[in-house]
């Protein structure tokens, strides 16, 4: 039997506000335990929540970026359950009427575009952290994270493979960073995924029973967890069993998912509108203002790179994977509009390779786009060869000679000899000194041609313009 995997994702994106969603405590990461948990975050008796405008703005921005409806009014509700990292005994979230409703995200998998629909995105507060290292058999609770604003972005079950799920997650990850609402730092938990996974016989319309996998804090784990979970479910069904709806945890060490809690003993959350918070109204003027601040979105840029610069869909996709990379590309290409492909190749090749090697981001790239453009200009006007350009690039990266491309070319003597007369003279000299190879070539030994080129390049210390050398040599030998 052929099986189809059906996946929906719930992503918790931590919004990049300075203060918490309902209190004025800092959201900065890494502070000493409970030093950023104010009386409101601690749920002391009598404290009350007041909504952070910055959190709402970020939610609206996402809604605009995915073409969703912005609900007004939107309602905050209490989700009631007991847990030591949840100080109030309820989480303020949204149930009916979330801020963002609907919308979609387009993903590219193997060159094919697919639309993933969003169900909703709602604002809520994060919980604290339970630390399980042993305090005489007890757990320690740190509430610094409690009250950090989250946007829970829920997709429809529109994905059919772990690859699609990961691509969607990466696209969304890129988008939230692109529009500046989330720093996307997965190690710090700023972008967390839960996956709803079910399987069904290929061609079946009916959805299978799903399991929710929690705690997926990397794209690799997301992929592995989905693959494991799908295999697990298929095996159970093929052996005649049935899937039990439950929440499962992914254990990265064992590469498996295991039961966290079953639906039957899941909490009855007793959602109801939070009486401490009033309906959130979002006037259309506010939405318009935010719309005006949104940058050109990755999708728009991608298609513009294809149409305006003639890039391949793949190149356009890579260059728009982050806004910073795309901005770098654009400011490079702005100076060399005719050399877009060459700019793309350099950024995706040398620049990305070097950034990866050193583990730094494009924003920290030691070679500014203006310098890269100067370098590419010298390649395209024939001043230097591609090989020499790599030497210049290395020098730029190291910050030599004030990162002046022409000075580097001059100082390192990397200028190509493009003067036809000079090259012809050299060719003549080499031909005279290598009569045997000339003869070989004329006798049909093609290899001898390359050998002669090598001799000429050697004589010029690689500075001769190879295209010119090639042409002149062909002419002479042919003559």
């Amino acid at each position, binding site marked *: 039997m052929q099986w189809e995997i059906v996946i929906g994702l719930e992503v918790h994106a931590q919004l990049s*506000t*300075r*203060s918490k969603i309902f*209190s*004025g*405590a*800092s959201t900065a990461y890494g502070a*000493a*335990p*409970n*030093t*950023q*948990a*104010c*009386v*409101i975050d*601690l749920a*002391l008796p009598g404290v009350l929540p*007041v*909504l*952070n*405008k*910055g*959190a*709402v703005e970020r939610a609206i921005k996402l809604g605009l970026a995915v073409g969703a409806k912005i609900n007004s*009014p939107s309602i*905050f509700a209490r989700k009631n359950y*007991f*847990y*030591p*990292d949840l100080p109030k005994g309820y989480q303020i979230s949204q149930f009916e009427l979330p801020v963002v409703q609907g919308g979609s995200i387009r993903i590219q998998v193997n060159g094919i575009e697919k639309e993933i629909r969003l169900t909703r995105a709602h604002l809520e507060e994060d919980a604290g952290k*339970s*630390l*399980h290292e042993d*305090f005489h*058999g*007890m*757990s*320690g*609770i*740190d*509430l610094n994270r409690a009250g950090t604003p989250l946007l829970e972005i829920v997709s429809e079950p529109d994905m059919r493979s772990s690859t699609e799920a990961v691509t969607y997650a990466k696209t969304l990850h890129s988008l939230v960073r692109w529009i500046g609402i989330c720093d996307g730092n997965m190690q710090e938990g700023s972008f967390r995924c839960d996956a709803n996974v079910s399987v069904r016989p290929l061609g079946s319309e009916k959805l299978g029973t799903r399991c929710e996998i929690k705690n997926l804090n990397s794209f690799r784990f997301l992929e592995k967890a989905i693959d494991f979970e799908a295999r697990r479910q298929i095996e159970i069904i093929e052996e005649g069993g049935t899937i039990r709806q439950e929440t499962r*945890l992914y254990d990265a060490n064992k590469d498996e998912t295991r039961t*966290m809690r079953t639906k039957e003993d899941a*909490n*009855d959350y*007793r959602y109801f*509108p939070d*009486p401490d*918070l*009033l*309906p*959130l*109204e979002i006037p259309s003027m506010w939405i318009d203002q935010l719309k005006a601040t949104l940058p050109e979105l990755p999708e728009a840029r991608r298609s513009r790179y294809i149409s305006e610069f003639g890039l391949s869909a793949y190149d356009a996709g890579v260059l728009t994977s982050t806004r910073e990379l795309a901005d770098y590309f654009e400011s490079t290409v702005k100076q060399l509009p005719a050399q877009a492909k060459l700019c793309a190749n350099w950024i995706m090749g040398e620049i990305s390779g070097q950034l990866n090697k050193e583990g730094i981001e494009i924003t920290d790239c030691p070679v500014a786009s203006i310098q890269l453009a100067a370098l590419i200009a010298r390649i395209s006007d024939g001043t230097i060869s591609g090989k020499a350009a790599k030497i210049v690039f290395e020098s730029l990266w190291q910050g030599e000679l004030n990162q002046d491309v022409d000075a580097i070319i001059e100082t390192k003597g990397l200028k190509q000899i493009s003067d036809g007369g000079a090259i012809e003279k050299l060719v003549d000299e080499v031909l005279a000194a290598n009569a045997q190879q000339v003869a070989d070539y004329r006798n049909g030994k093609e290899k001898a041609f390359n050998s002669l080129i090598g001799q000429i390049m050697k004589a010029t210390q690689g500075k001769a313009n190879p295209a010119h050398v090639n042409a002149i040599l062909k002419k002479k030998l042919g003559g």
Partner: protein
Amino acid sequence: MTLTVNDVKRIADLAYIEIDKDEAEATLTQLSGIFNLIETMQAVDTSSVEPMSHAQSVVQRLREDEVTETDQRELCQSIAPQVEAGLYLVPQVIE
């Protein structure tokens, strides 16, 4: 509507309040009376009425995104049942 002792136990469980059998039975009698009173609501047709959550029809006020709170850990933890290394201690949390 008829409440049972099991209902009482179930809601006590949801509310995280320990309750023994005798208490549950005593509570059942009281809650049944209260729910009889509450049931009188059902006599009124409200099909065309919008629920009212707040006394005033005002909208949510928003706070500027500014850090206004300072570290009060020492003061706040001085009244905590059990703390160590700045953490609130609870019986082992099992996930």
